[in-house]
């Protein structure tokens, strides 16, 4: 037997209680791992996106559309080299798989996004095919789509003139990203704005959700975005212009401040955990006060006793924490697979680091008071049950 063996043996004095406590630690860290990686997916934004593009949306919200008549005015701004636009299509594959799908002008989009790599012939086909559709490599692989196929896609927003929400498009191109980061985002689908303008039932024409401005090398993004917003101030179409990165973040924030939500959930989870494990530790020390006194009698120092109790707390939280984090990475991998890589949930180093810090802090939080109590025990009082 060793001191470690003794600590572990003590953990299993009340098997059921220890297992239940362990399960709650595991659950908490599983949640922690998943939520934290969701959070880091969203909050990291896209660092690799340069500041060479600006996004212009309606000031109220990007769900409010802006008229395409703004294009020439935007193009006239010094420093702006190209203008593209995108409108949310609300595409749905089969019954309920939402697609990240936009209507746009092929040539303009191509000019603004050199990061997408696709044979020129396919770009041309996209431009020339009214019902054309291009998709990213990931999406194509996920559903086994091939160029030349007709892809039925419905829209949860836009019916066609005949009232049907079921649309069909000709897949004319599949694009890749210029590097690994961009390749990860090839889960997008694009169709022609012109075709959409013509075919949608509401007769919505010439409007879009946002413009994308490509800036000249060395242009002052800050100044240009102020210029744009000033230009449309007090018009019916006031704008809000920001960098692509900020736009990506605020896009996500429309769903809610994920970071804040995650923090609150984790706070609640860990607070509960603190109570559960703290109670287990306090109880386990309380019920073996005579035993702790005997250890002191045998010659274990106050410091050793303190160490024993703290080690128990640490072992409990460490075991549960590691299992929880491992489960989270397994679950993350599953989610990633199930969504065909559309939803990346990997526990990166920062999540693990944070997890280990949480394990250490949690151990201290639940172990310190019981350990101090054990350390302070007076042998004669404890032996006599006083």
């Amino acid at each position, binding site marked *: *037997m*060793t001191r470690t063996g*003794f600590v572990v*043996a003590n953990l299993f004095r009340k098997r059921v209680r220890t297992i239940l406590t362990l399960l709650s630690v595991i659950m908490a860290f599983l949640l922690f791992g998943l939520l934290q990686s969701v959070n880091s997916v969203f909050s990291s934004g896209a660092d690799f996106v340069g500041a060479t593009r600006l996004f212009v949306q309606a000031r109220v919200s990007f769900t409010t559309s802006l008229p395409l008549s703004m294009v020439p005015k935007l193009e006239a701004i010094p420093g702006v080299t190209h203008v593209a636009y995108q409108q949310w299509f609300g595409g749905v594959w089969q019954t309920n798989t939402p697609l990240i799908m936009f209507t746009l002008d092929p040539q303009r989009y191509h000019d603004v996004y050199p990061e997408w790599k696709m044979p020129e012939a396919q770009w041309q086909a996209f431009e020339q095919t009214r019902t054309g559709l291009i998709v990213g490599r990931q999406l194509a692989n996920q559903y086994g789509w091939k160029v030349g196929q007709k892809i039925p896609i419905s829209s949860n927003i836009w019916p066609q003139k005949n009232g049907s929400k079921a649309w069909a498009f000709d897949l004319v191109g599949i694009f890749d990203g210029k590097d690994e980061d961009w390749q990860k985002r090839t889960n997008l689908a694009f169709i022609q704005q012109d075709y959409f303008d013509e075919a949608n039932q509401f007769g919505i024409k010439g409007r879009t959700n946002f413009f994308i401005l490509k800036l000249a090398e060395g242009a002052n993004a800050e100044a240009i975005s102020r210029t744009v917003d000033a230009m449309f101030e007090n018009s019916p179409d006031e704008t809000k212009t920001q960098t692509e990165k900020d736009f990506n973040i605020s896009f996500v924030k429309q769903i809610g401040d994920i970071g804040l939500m995650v923090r609150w959930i984790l706070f609640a989870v860990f607070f509960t955990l603190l109570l559960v494990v703290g109670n287990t530790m306090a109880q386990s020390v309380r019920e073996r006060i005579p035993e702790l006194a005997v*250890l002191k009698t*045998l010659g274990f120092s106050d410091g050793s006793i303190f160490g024993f109790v703290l080690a128990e707390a640490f072992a409990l939280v460490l075991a549960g924490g590691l299992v929880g984090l491992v489960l989270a990475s397994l679950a993350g991998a599953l989610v990633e697979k199930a969504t065909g890589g559309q939803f990346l949930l990997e526990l990166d180093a920062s999540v693990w680091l944070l997890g280990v810090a949480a394990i250490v802090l949690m151990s201290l939080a639940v172990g310190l008071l019981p350990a101090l109590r054990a350390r302070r025990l007076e*042998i*004669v009082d404890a032996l*006599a049950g006083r």
Partner: protein
Amino acid sequence: MSEPMVQVHNVTKVYERGKQKIEVLHGLTLEIPQGDFVALMGPSGSGKTTLLNLIGGLDKPTAGEITVGGQRIDQLGSGQLANWRAHNVGFVFQFYNLMPVLTAEGNVELPLLLTKLSGAQRRKNVAVALEVVGLSDRAKHKPRELSGGQEQRVAIARALVSDPQLLVCDEPTGDLDRKTADEILGLLQVLNREHGKTIVIVTHDPKAAEFARRTLHLEKGQLLEQAA
């Protein structure tokens, strides 16, 4: 005989309970030679446990001197005292006080975790101690799988395993039936006679006197007689 095993000189013990002060021992003096087997008797509350705890270095006197095995222990700090106990004294309690999560073997090994002995040496010493108390065949049993008498034997093995010269036992037979109590007292007698351990037991059992070399009576914190 060389110097005494235990010297208690003019020891006073006062417990403070809030504002209340209880003086339990009043200038008590006592000498226990090496190799003695003393039965300490007396009514409840007379201070027997208090005296035993002082001799065993579990508590410190309010005044007076205590020397055990040539070492003044009343002046040691609590860390030094813990270390001193680990090497010089073995304890046996009325309710055995074994660790329920450990086997007999594990319980006996516990004090050896405080020594520098190797794992193999520890196991050897544990086997010897269990042999001495006649429980080799129960080494792998947990306390709840043992009878009271067997538990007390394990406790005695635990007290012996680091080979202290002094054993202090607080009502070691208080929770046992007559026959088992006699066996335990017999075992202590063997430890005294054959292994040369100095033993002090607190007991209510008049028969314990038959096993001890002498009996001391404590009443209201004072020794009544000191049989030769």
